[in-house]
C-alpha cells in the first residue's frame, strides 16, 4: 500500500570518504546547509576523507589536476593532463580554488567544521580508517565528537525522515 503523505527531511547522515578539496567541500556544504535548515546533521569521515578533520592535513587539501576531465584552464579551454603532472601545478590550482571559494564567503575547512558544530551538527571519524592511518583522537580537530564504528554510525541514522548521503 502506498500513501501520498509528505515526510519532511528530519535528519541527514553524510559520509565523506575522499580528501580532495571538491569532495570535502561537497560534504561540508551539504552538512552546513542542512544545519542551517534546522535538519539534524551527522557527518562521518572515513578513508582519505579523514584528512579534512586531521589537524595536520585539514589546511593543506588539494584538488587533483590529473584524470579530471572537467578541469578547465581559466577561460574555459581544456586543461591538458600532462600539464597537471608538472611540479607546482596542483598546488597552484588548489590555491586558486581556495581563493575562489573565499571570495564567495566559503570558510576554510577548520572554520567550516566549527560552523557545523555551532549549529548542533555532529562530526565523527571512522574507527577502522583511523586505525589504518594510525590516527588518534588528539590528531583530529576538536570539533570531532568521537571515533566510531560503521555500526555506531548506522545506529545514529535511525528514524523516519532520515537520509544517508554518500558524497
Amino acid at each position, binding site marked *: 500500500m502506498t500513501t501520498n503523505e509528505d515526510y519532511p527531511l528530519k535528519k541527514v547522515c553524510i559520509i565523506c570518504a575522499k580528501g580532495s578539496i571538491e569532495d570535502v567541500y561537497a560534504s561540508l556544504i551539504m552538512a*552546513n*546547509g542542512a544545519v*542551517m535548515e*534546522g535538519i539534524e546533521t551527522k557527518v562521518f569521515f572515513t578513508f582519505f576523507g579523514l584528512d579534512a578533520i586531521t589537524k595536520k592535513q585539514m589546511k593543506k587539501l588539494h584538488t587533483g589536476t590529473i584524470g579530471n576531465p572537467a578541469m578547465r584552464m581559466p577561460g574555459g579551454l581544456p586543461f591538458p593532463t600532462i600539464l597537471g603532472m608538472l611540479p607546482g601545478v596542483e598546488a597552484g590550482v588548489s590555491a586558486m580554488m581556495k581563493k575562489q571559494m573565499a571570495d*564567495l*564567503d566559503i570558510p576554510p575547512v577548520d572554520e567550516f567544521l566549527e*560552523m557545523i558544530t*555551532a*549549529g548542533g551538527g555532529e562530526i565523527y571519524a571512522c574507527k577502522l580508517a583511523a586505525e589504518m592511518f594510525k590516527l588518534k583522537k588528539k590528531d583530529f580537530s576538536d570539533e570531532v565528537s568521537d571515533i566510531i564504528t560503521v555500526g555506531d554510525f548506522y545506529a545514529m541514522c535511525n528514524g523516519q525522515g532520515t537520509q544517508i548521503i554518500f558524497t
Partner: protein
Amino acid sequence: MAQKTIANVTVSINEEGYLENMSEWTKELGSELAKEEGIDITDKHFEVIDFIRNKVEKGETLTIRAVGKSGIVNIKEFYQLFPGAPLKKATKISGVPKPTSCI
C-alpha cells in the same frame, strides 16, 4: 501577493510569509513576527536584526558566517537566538527577503 495585518498595520507578504517591501518594517512588526516564530524578542535580537537590515540595504550577500563575524553574536549564539533555521527565521523577522545563499 497577500495582505496581512500585523501590529495594527497592513503589509504585503509573499507566500512564505516574508515581507514584500522591507521599508514597511517597524520594530513592533518585528516583535509580532518573532512571536509567530515562537521567539520572545530581546535587545540582542534587535541588534542582529539591525545588522541584517543594514547588510541587505547595502545589497550584500547575507550568510551565517557574516552574522557570526558581525561582532554582535557568534554563530552558536545566533542559533540560540533564532533556533532551528536561524538565517531564515531572522530574515523573516527582519522584514527582508529570504536569503538565497547556500552558506
